[in-house]
């Protein structure tokens, strides 16, 4: 990590650190960051503030609560914070939302018919959509000892209908919602035959 020179106003500091101005003010209030030396519209923050914000971010990514982070930071001077950041193993930067979308769309363009390399939620259990227990087994008033069971497995079923495009000419299409009954399929065949004859008559 290179030596940071210069000072920042609040918005610049927020942008450099990847947090909001409101977060910075909160951290100052909670004692994780020292106040700026000046006040008002000329308030400037230094490299030490930026380093501390970066270290706070790394510690939060390590799932430490803010109270613990404050304890760890309170005895560190700017030099010590910088040494910690420099010695920390480099993390792979997370792609931005825009980069993520571009990657997905580019992969789709390269392999329009292949399944994506991203894992499907059908195969990978998703903790965030797990339900606690089957409603048929839970919340017994006297059954405190009942064991909760997992519930919410995804069941695949066929979609109820799809739309099909049938080209009749370069500029004319027919849209059909499947599935059709046998009678409707027969009517569709007749319709297509008549339509194609009509269009070919116009072309001749």
């Amino acid at each position: 990590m290179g030596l940071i020179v210069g000072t920042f106003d609040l918005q610049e500091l927020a942008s450099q650190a990847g947090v909001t101005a409101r977060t910075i003010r909160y951290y100052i209030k909670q004692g994780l960051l020292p106040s700026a030396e000046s006040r008002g519209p000329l308030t400037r923050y230094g490299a030490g503030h930026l380093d501390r914000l970066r270290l706070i971010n790394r510690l939060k990514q390590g799932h430490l609560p803010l109270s613990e982070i404050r304890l760890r930071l309170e005895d560190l001077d700017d030099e010590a914070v910088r040494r910690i950041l420099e010695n920390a193993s480099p993390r792979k930067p997370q792609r931005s939302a825009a980069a993520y979308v571009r990657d997905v769309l580019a992969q789709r363009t390269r392999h329009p018919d292949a399944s994506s390399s991203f894992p499907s939620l059908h195969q990978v259990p998703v903790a965030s959509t797990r339900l606690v227990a089957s409603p048929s087994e839970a919340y017994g008033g006297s059954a405190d000892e009942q064991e909760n069971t997992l519930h919410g497995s995804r069941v695949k079923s066929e979609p109820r209908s799809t739309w099909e495009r049938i080209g009749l000419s370069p500029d004319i299409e027919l849209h059909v919602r499947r599935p059709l009954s046998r009678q409707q399929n027969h009517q569709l065949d007749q319709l297509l035959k008549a339509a194609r004859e009509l269009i070919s008559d116009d072309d001749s």
Partner: protein
Amino acid sequence: MTNEPNSNALSLQLLADRSLIRAGAHSTRYFTATLVAPTAERREQPLPVNVALVLDRSGSMSDARKFELAREAVESALGMLRKTDRFSLVVYDDHIDVLARSTLATDTARRNALRALAEIQPRGSTDLGAGWLTGCEQVAEHLDRSGVNRCLLLTDGLANHGITDPGQLAMHARELRVRGVVTSTFGVGADFDERLLRDMAHEGGGTFTFIEGAAQIPEAVTAELGEAAEVTVREASIRVDAPEGVRVEVLNRFRSSTDPATGSLVVVIGDLVSNQEITAALSATFPTGEIGEQVGIRFSALEQDHNVLGAGGKLTWTFATHSENDAQARERAVDRAVASVFASRARAEATEANRRGDLATAKRVLIGTARRIKGYAANDGELRQLAQSLEAAVSEYSVAEMSPYALKASLYAHENALKSRTPSGRATRRES
């Protein structure tokens, strides 16, 4: 059992069903955590809005004036934006057209977008994935983490071109939410895949809206945008810190995760709008302990970047004998809230069972849940009525296969109930 409400603008109120737990057995107790967001007037200024409107223009959208009404919805939505907000406009069938790249919502920009939209006619099949992702890209390119960044997807059909796997689309929605882009979905009519749109919104941190008739399109879209402009708390969550040996789980359909370092459960609520009230129902299963010993669970309300908002509290339970446990009073408000959640879950499960033709399971789930609610209802009228309504629902879910409309309406109703939203999908507001 009751935590005193915090005096900060965001309030967190806690209520447990009972205060005693069994010393000689593993007890499960239930409790509610209610968040109430501050009113919009308390904020310094409204949050900036950065929105993409993504419209399905496939052939079926010509039915029943759906696309015409979608155009009206867009016009109304653009009219709600401030000049400092951003919008983009994308239409898709099996080809994606960006009618308006992300731009500030000036009068000229709005006019140009609507003029371009007026020339679009429905055609083609449905590359929902690429259309939606293109809208997300427009939002992402001008992401403002201090504001509301949202992609609104409106469709009447399926994802039948391009990325078609619902699991992948939901996963992409989750990845984009983590990176700051929220997805809300609108499904119109009888033919769209309601589970796809529900899951995209769930993973994407937004809301899913079922629009039965095309005439409701404008109101649904403008209601969503109206709420986006009223956000007063970004990315709210509730952190639950329980001692070792106590297992806490959330019963509603909120995303949650466990912090591996601290063991805290984080219940993700999402953006909260002015005066919005969210009630999460949770359960805690306790180990055995010594009579008289106490166990406490701490709660904190968090916002964006996991900053603690100041609203918090603690619930405490005391180990006691079996007879003391059996004799203790119950907090009926919690019983009703939790029973309501389980009733919604039963109906949601019955809906899925009906969808796959398993009418026996649909009936079993409803009857079983009703029986259990009756088990602790005693003379409580609301609980007894809840149980009876589940029994009556047997005729709705387990006699014949439900129509596509009925399946959608049922899924939508219970998704809203399990997310503490109104039956029409709007934020529940505390009455002032």
